[in-house]
C-alpha cells in the first residue's frame, strides 16, 4: 500500500481520521521507506519548533505592551481610509522608536492618532494647510518639500521639521501621515531620511510634482482640486 505525501504529512500532523492513521501505522512496520518519510517529516517539525519556539519564551518588548496599554478605548471605527497604507504609516512611525514616540504622544505635538491612522495636528497641520514651498516663512518650524498628486488622487506634501519628517496626504479629516521619518533633530538620520523621503514621494506620485502655480491653486481649492488633468 502506498500513501501520497499529503496523507503522510497529515498523519504526522495528527490530521488523519482514525482508520487511515491505523493503516499507516501498520504499513510503517514493514515499509522502511514509508517509515523514513514519516521520520523525516517528524524531524522537520522538530527542527522548526526547535528554531522558532524559543521566541515564545523571550521577554516581550516593553514597547509592544505599552502600545497595547496606551491604546484608546474603542470609538466608532472610521472605514473611509484604505487600510494597507495605514498600517504602513503606523509601522513606519513605530520604527522611529521611542524618541519620536514621546514627542508624538505629547499634547500639542505634531501628530494625533486618528481612528485608523496618524493625523498631522497643531503647527504641522497649519503648515501643511497654508505654507507654500515657494514662500516658506522663516518663523515656521516646518519646511514643505514637494507637493504632488498620489495614485489614489489625494494631494500629498512632503515636510520636514525638528521632530519628524514625512509625507502627509489631504483627506476630509485633515492631513494623514502616510510616511514618517525621523526629523532633523536626529542629525545622524537626516541624510538617510532625506533620501528616503524623496524615494517615498516618487513612489507615491502620479505625474510630476506641482509647480508653484499649481501649488497655489491647490491651496485655494483647499487641497481638493477637482480634475486630474491639472499639472
Amino acid at each position, binding site marked *: 500500500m502506498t500513501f501520497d505525501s499529503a496523507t503522510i504529512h497529515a498523519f504526522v500532523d495528527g*490530521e488523519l481520521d482514525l482508520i487511515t492513521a491505523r493503516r499507516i501505522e501498520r504499513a510503517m512496520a514493514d515499509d522502511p521507506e514509508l517509515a523514513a518519510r514519516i521520520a523525516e517529516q517528524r524531524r522537520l517539525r522538530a*527542527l*522548526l519548533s526547535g528554531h*522558532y519556539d524559543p521566541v515564545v519564551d523571550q521577554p516581550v518588548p516593553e514597547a509592544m505592551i505599552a*502600545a497595547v496599554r496606551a491604546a484608546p478605548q*474603542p470609538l466608532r*471605527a472610521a472605514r473611509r481610509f484604505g487600510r494597507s497604507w495605514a*498600517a504602513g504609516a503606523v509601522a513606519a512611525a513605530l*520604527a522611529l522608536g521611542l524618541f519620536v514616540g514621546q514627542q508624538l504622544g505629547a499634547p500639542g505635538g505634531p501628530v494625533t492618532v486618528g481612528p485608523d491612522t496618524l493625523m498631522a495636528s497643531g503647527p504641522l497641520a497649519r503648515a501643511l494647510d497654508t505654507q507654500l514651498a515657494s514662500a516658506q516663512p522663516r518663523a515656521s518650524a516646518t519646511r514643505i518639500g514637494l507637493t504632488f498628486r498620489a495614485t489614489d488622487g489625494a494631494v500629498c506634501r512632503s515636510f520636514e521639521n525638528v521632530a519628524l519628517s514625512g509625507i502627509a496626504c489631504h483627506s476630509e479629516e485633515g492631513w494623514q501621515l502616510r510616511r514618517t521619518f525621523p526629523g532633523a533633530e536626529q542629525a545622524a538620520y537626516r541624510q538617510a531620511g532625506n533620501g528616503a523621503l524623496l524615494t517615498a514621494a516618487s513612489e507615491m506620485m502620479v505625474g510630476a510634482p506641482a509647480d508653484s502655480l499649481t501649488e497655489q491653486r491647490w491651496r485655494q481649492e483647499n487641497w481638493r482640486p477637482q480634475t486630474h488633468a491639472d499639472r
Partner: protein
Amino acid sequence: MAFEGRAFEDDLIGLIPRLRRFARSLSGSESDADDLCQAALERALKARDQWQAGTRLDSWMMKITRNIWIDSVRSSARRRTTALDDAREIAGDGEQQVEARALRVDIDAAMGRLVDDQREAVALVLVEGFAYKEAAEILDIPMGTLTSRLVRGREALARDLGAAA
C-alpha cells in the same frame, strides 16, 4: 464595549509571544518580525470592533499579522534581501561556535526561499500548530489548497535542509 474593560488588551498582550514567533517565521529576521508584530497590534487595536467576541482572537491576530506581512512583501522585496545578507555575513564568520547559529540561519533562509503562500502555510501549521481547518480559515483558502501548499513547502524545506531534516 465598555463592559469588556481591558480584557481585549490583556488577551492581546497574552498573544504577543506567539505573534512574535509567527512573525519571525514569516519575516525571517528578529527586527522585521518585531516591526511586523507592532504593526499588527496597532492595526488590531484600531480594528477591534471588527473582531467578533466569542471567535478565536489568536486566529484573528494571525490573519492580521499575515495580511500586513503580505502587504509589505508585495510593496518591497528589500526585506528578504537584507535577511539573506545577514545570513551570508554569519556564514562568512567561519568559526565553529557559529555552527549552531548558522543552522538557525539556515532555517530562516530555507523558510525565506519558500514562496510566500507555502511559507505562511508552513508557519501556521508546523510552527504555530494550527489545525488544517483553522489555518485554511486564517488564510481564507480552501483546505485542499492549504494541504497542497503544505506538501510543496515541506518537500522544499526537507530538500533544502538536507541532512538536518
